[in-house]
């Protein structure tokens, strides 16, 4: 099964490549650049200094947004999750907030934060924080009750209980939430750049879209996909080490 999985991954990759090439052949340049052209474009972009500047802009906003979303999201989840009542009250509110098409709030965000980097960070946090909160709240609710009773029998203080029993017990689910929030925060930052910035990868995408430069669009798409896959793999590996 292990071998099959890797063969499967390669097979999927090849199939996607074929579909890509087919779309290019049918639709032409204006639809999608071909895989070959994209590869060339990617190669030249990687050697271009201004490209890396844009990457830096995006990365900075992304890391900032991720830290705020993770710390804020998990803390809020912990605070709401400890009491049955508060999680029952907050749950539907959070889910409803999250279902609002965030794009309708974009004008509000821009009006609040202006057009600079804080708006992009705000977009990122907007997209990424709530799932982390929800996952953390769920994790606490699903924790085995016998753990808390054991902590009481061992006469741990509330702080000791929270730090040595509750946190390790909920860590796997919290990490799942962070993995999901990771992708979403990045998406938020990119979207923010796509229509309210003059820097960053999102901005590059929008510029390319406006002039029909499908090579750049595809090159960036490939780059993002590669980044997402790699970081997800790293996060999964890291979670397995920390929470066996």
């Amino acid at each position, binding site marked *: *099964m292990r071998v099959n999985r890797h063969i499967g991954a390669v097979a999927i990759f090849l199939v996607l490549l074929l579909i890509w090439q087919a779309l290019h052949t049918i639709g032409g340049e204006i639809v999608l650049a071909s895989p070959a052209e994209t590869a060339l474009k990617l190669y030249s972009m990687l050697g271009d200094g201004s490209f890396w500047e844009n990457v830096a802009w995006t990365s900075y906003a992304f890391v900032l947004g991720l830290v705020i979303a993770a710390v804020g999201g998990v803390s809020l989840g912990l605070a709401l999750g400890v009491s049955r009542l508060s999680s029952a009250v907050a749950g539907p509110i959070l889910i409803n907030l999250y279902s*609002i098409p965030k794009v309708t*709030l974009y*004008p509000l965000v821009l009006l609040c934060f202006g057009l600079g980097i804080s708006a992009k960070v705000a977009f990122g946090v907007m997209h990424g924080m709530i799932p982390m909160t929800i996952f953390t709240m769920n994790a606490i609710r699903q924790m085995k009750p016998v753990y808390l009773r054991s902590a009481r029998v061992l006469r741990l203080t509330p702080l000791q209980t929270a730090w040595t029993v509750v946190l390790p017990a909920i860590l796997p689910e919290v990490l799942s939430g962070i993995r999901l929030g990771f992708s979403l925060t990045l998406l938020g930052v990119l979207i923010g750049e796509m229509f309210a910035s003059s820097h960053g990868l999102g901005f590059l995408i929008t510029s390319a879209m406006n002039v029909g430069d499908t090579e750049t669009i595809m090159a960036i798409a490939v780059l993002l996909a590669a980044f997402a896959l790699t970081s997800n793999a790293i996060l999964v590996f890291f979670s397995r080490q920390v929470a066996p």
Partner: protein
Amino acid sequence: MKLESWIRLAVVAGSVGAIELLCRTGVIPNSVMIPPSDMALALASILSSGEMTGDIVSTFTNVALATLITVVLGFVLGQSIHAVPWLRASIEPLLASYYSVPTFMFYPVFIVLFGIGRAPIVAIAVLLAIVAMIMSTLNGLDRIPAVLRKTAHIYRMSRVATALLIELPAAAPYLFTGMKLVVAYAFIGVIASEFILSGSGLGYRIAYAYNNFENGKMYGLMLLVLVSVTLVNSGLNAIDNRLQARRRR
């Protein structure tokens, strides 16, 4: 109503009231946000004047179409992937990383494939929502106790009969959770596409109002989206509770 519902109502009402106060006293300047009461008034006037009815209908139609296509296609794909374990193992990492890529940058692709109009918008919404449906389907199919499938074997049911009569009802609660997500994503996808890339629909109207500094109209429309999504969610939640209650073990 249960205690928690009362508290929730109080929290929401309190927050809205606080925002109203902050807007009226100028702590939040009118150029940034108008008071909620003015938003409601603007919405009322939009609805009564009927100037945007066409756009409203258009958006909701798009959402409905996207939801329908996603649910059916997503379930079928989910079933197929679930049936082939190595395929699933290869695809799952891709699914997990899917949301990092802003898929609506492929909008031009869809314009060329489907022409301008409803289709590219629905296509992007489907693209956004389908992964949620596939993952819920996989999850739901996972949760079906093996004994149910064994029972189907003993009755010598065909693959299709098993899928429709046993697997679908058994996985229904989880599929429904997926459907709630699909509706949410469909709204997001449709309105985001209209916002950024289209010439009609609610999303477009909000963008237009924003670009022309018509805060009143803009917030009125945003309120409309908020209320619609909440109503649809409440409806789906009510159905969900019914489903869950029947299945309580």
